[in-house]
């Protein structure tokens, strides 16, 4: 049963910008449920994790937690879209072996009073591991998008190469986007790159597109598509890529 569940508060670092009130309303029996993704040595595993509306926009809380272990020389590819729920949240905790790789591409998108977030913690525990995270957030109304990305490099994990890129796009006044990159590095021969920006649609591009005859909603759709596409660049399967893009653009089309 759920007697052992201790609900998070915003004092918890990993829930700092979250809608913790929404957590109380969820099925707490699933709060501590983790999906395990185990990648054997030298193999590749790909998962697409999509939190999307089944029909009408949902006001439930959707929490998906993934515990990823990538054995030596393995490769895990995760592609995430968080587009539903009053609170939609995907957590990824990954532990990488020697020469292992983690690829994480994620998009949060939403308006109204929703909070959509991706929280990752990538642990480079052995040498030669690589990781690449690309997360894009698109929000409007009074929507909030959060990315909390932590990278831990253990003292023995030399030659680690970890990269993290986050960009937020705010379509309307009132929406907000929070980025918390966190790097804890205890090895001295490593590469860790991270970047985080938040901005609006480029007004010059919008006028340029209008001057060629594109109505504002079509121009906005093209610009948002270009903006989020970075998150799916590493997704090798065109069908999957299109499916994820359809979820994202479908959300944009219905709720702008």
């Amino acid at each position: 049963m759920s007697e052992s569940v201790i609900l998070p508060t915003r004092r918890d670092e990993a829930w700092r910008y979250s809608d913790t009130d929404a957590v109380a309303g969820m099925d707490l029996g699933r709060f501590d449920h983790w999906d395990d993704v185990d990648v054997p040595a030298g193999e590749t595993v790909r998962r697409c994790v999509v939190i999307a509306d089944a029909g009408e926009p949902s006001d439930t809380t959707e929490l998906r937690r993934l515990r990823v272990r990538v054995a030596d020389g393995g490769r895990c590819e995760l592609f995430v879209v968080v587009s539903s729920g009053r609170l939609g949240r995907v957590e990824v905790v990954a532990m990488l072996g020697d020469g292992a790789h983690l690829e994480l591409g994620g998009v949060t998108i939403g308006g109204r009073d929703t909070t959509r977030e991706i929280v990752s913690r990538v642990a480079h525990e052995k040498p030669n591991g690589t990781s690449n995270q690309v997360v894009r957030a698109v929000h409007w109304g009074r929507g909030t998008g959060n990315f909390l990305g932590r990278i831990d490099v253990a003292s023995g994990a030399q030659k680690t190469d970890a990269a993290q890129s986050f960009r937020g796009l705010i379509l309307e006044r009132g929406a907000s986007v929070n980025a918390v990159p966190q790097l804890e590095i205890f090895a001295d021969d490593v590469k860790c790159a991270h970047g985080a920006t938040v901005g609006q649609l480029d007004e010059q591009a919008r006028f340029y597109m209008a001057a060629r005859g594109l109505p504002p909603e079509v121009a906005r759709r093209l610009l948002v598509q270009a903006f989020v596409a970075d998150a799916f660049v590493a997704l090798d399967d065109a069908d999957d890529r299109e499916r994820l893009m359809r979820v994202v653009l479908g959300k944009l089309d219905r709720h702008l």
Partner: protein
Amino acid sequence: MLTIDNLHAEIDGKPILNGLSLTVQAGEVHAIMGPNGAGKSTLAYVLGGRPGYEVTQGSVTFAGQDLLALEPHERAAAGLFLGFQYPVEIPGVSNVQFLREALNAQRRSRGEEPLSGGEFLRLAREKAALLNLDMEMLKRHVNVGFSGGEKKRAEMVQMGILDPRFAILDETDSGLDIDALRVVGEGINAIMRAPAKGVLLITHYQRLLDYVRPDYVHILSGGRIVRSGGADLARRLEAEGYDAVMEQAA
């Protein structure tokens, strides 16, 4: 086909256009020349409907419609093309996707059938060849990584594909070398020299006018047209300078 009457416009409360009047008939090419700060680009942006450019007085009629009442994309669909002095880069959006969406949006708003992918590519290939632009460049993102001259030729390829009734070309000649200038000039003639079309060429220099011969030349200064004449006026400007020619006007 374009009638501008007593146009006043301002940016951030600062008046830039101060009673500009101009009429372009179908089949005509008009050149607008003038010193820096005269209001040339402002005129182009006001006609295109750029946000932040506020018309405080006057009217603009285009093909019988009140142009200023239309949104920027509606002006394009009505047949107006604005060639940018500084074409905008749009990372992540390919030229082909952008132009096909733009053309089909215009066609739909006119009640015409959208072009298929194959039909569009044929059209794009034909216009790229006209402007001597490698078709591969149209598969790249809009203007991203293009040199100044490539951006200007790409603008003219866009014009060829969209096939407007009226083009306002804002310093399309800047950034072009001699060979590119000739290609662009011939492209403008091929696309826009027609009895039912009109062109407003905004330029600093006379050299583009060697290729695209204007029917009228106007000198813009202080937000108004201070002098109008034929093609020879541009040559006199080039030889004598704005100050000398405008003094004679005063």
